[in-house]
């Protein structure tokens, strides 16, 4: 019986999640990084709640971007090293579906996990409770967009020995709009004004990257395999 694209999607997603949970260290490292970096700021700044609150959105967002980047290097690399990537390409299934499933799995174990600990971090940064919904919404859109962008970077650098720095150089400039709108949305929520505009823009970026980035990443993987 032929395998449908949906079967392939579920198969890849399940396998990626299983692999992540078999390697909890890779799961926990970005989270610990996120918590440590964000808690360094309140320790380093003078004890002024207003100053901390003003810096909080930028600190939160920069730390979230960097923490998501940490695990991006492994997105396709381990598959490329053990020969699985060739088998994926030769499966006769569109690489697009495989890239979508792998990237979504990456987001679930990195971005979504960051969302879970972000209330804790936000409390340390003196972000008021009323701003939490906007913060969580903007962070979820932002980290998901970053995973799609990261898939392109990871696809392009999969053949390189030390691709990690190069991924950051490729992805971070592309992630600047995320930082601007994401931190802007959180900032507005803290100030008590409407953050809808920035959230719409983040959602638009997310839709744009989730439809186009898998094509780019799949093409990059095919080129690097040659």
């Amino acid at each position, binding site marked *: 019986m032929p395998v449908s694209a949906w079967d*392939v999607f579920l198969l890849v997603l399940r396998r990626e999640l299983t692999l992540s949970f078999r390697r909890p260290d890779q799961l926990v490292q970005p989270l610990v990084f996120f918590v440590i970096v964000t808690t360094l700021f309140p320790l380093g700044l003078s004890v002024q709640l207003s100053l901390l609150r003003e810096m909080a959105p930028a600190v939160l967002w920069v730390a979230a971007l960097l923490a998501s980047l940490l695990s991006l290097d492994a997105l396709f690399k381990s598959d490329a090293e*053990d*020969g699985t990537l*060739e*088998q994926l390409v*030769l*499966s006769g299934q569109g690489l697009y579906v495989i890239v979508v499933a792998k990237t979504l799995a990456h987001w679930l174990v990195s971005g979504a996990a960051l969302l879970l600990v972000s209330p804790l971090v936000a409390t340390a940064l003196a972000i008021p409770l009323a701003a939490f919904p906007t913060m969580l919404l903007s962070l979820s859109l932002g980290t998901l967009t970053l995973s799609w962008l990261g898939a392109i970077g990871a696809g392009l650098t999969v053949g390189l020995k030390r691709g990690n720095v190069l991924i950051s150089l490729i992805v971070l400039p592309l992630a600047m709009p995320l930082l601007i709108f994401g931190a802007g949305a959180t900032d507005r929520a803290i100030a008590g004004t409407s953050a809808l505009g920035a959230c719409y823009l983040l959602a638009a970026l997310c839709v744009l990257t989730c439809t186009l980035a898998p094509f780019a990443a799949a093409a990059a993987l095919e080129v690097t395999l040659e």
Partner: protein
Amino acid sequence: MHVWRGDRHVLKGVSFELGSGELLHVTGPNGSGKTTLLRVLTGLLRPEQGRIAWHGEEIAAAPSDYQRALAYASHEPALKSDLSALENLRFLVGLKRRLSTAELTAALQRTGVAHCADLPVRVLSAGQRRRVAMARVLAVQAKLWLLDEPYTNLDVAGTELLSSLLQSHVAAGGMALVVAHHELNVEMARRRLDLA
């Protein structure tokens, strides 16, 4: 076909045809382009000159159909060390066709590693991994086998087993292209392509 890797002319005008029930043994010294030839045949690498056709149709025209009809076993066994042998197979074979756990276990049994089905691949020996990779090729039920040095790390019994599997695949109308340094120990007609 002709293939260049950078400035190096690796495949200098290789040409052959393979039909149902045929076995082609590719030989040649190190660096003569055996693996490159296999990668070109899978479609992973495009030849600069020449064409590869499957059922008379160029493979680039319908890559998915062709890829579903082939099973490629590269140098690397393509197994995840954190997953069990069975989980690895369920994933890799599942991408190509739907099948039951019983079918996968049967494939592992045929290659003599059924007892390792639930062990993480990390604890398997190189030879056992090779056998699991061979079970994948079997379970895919592909018409065309492309095997890159399949005898590496196999013990005497493993070598015999692989030869008998090759023989039954080809006898059943399958096609196989095997890259191997030493002689294939099969009792059947085979063609030879020397890349030297």
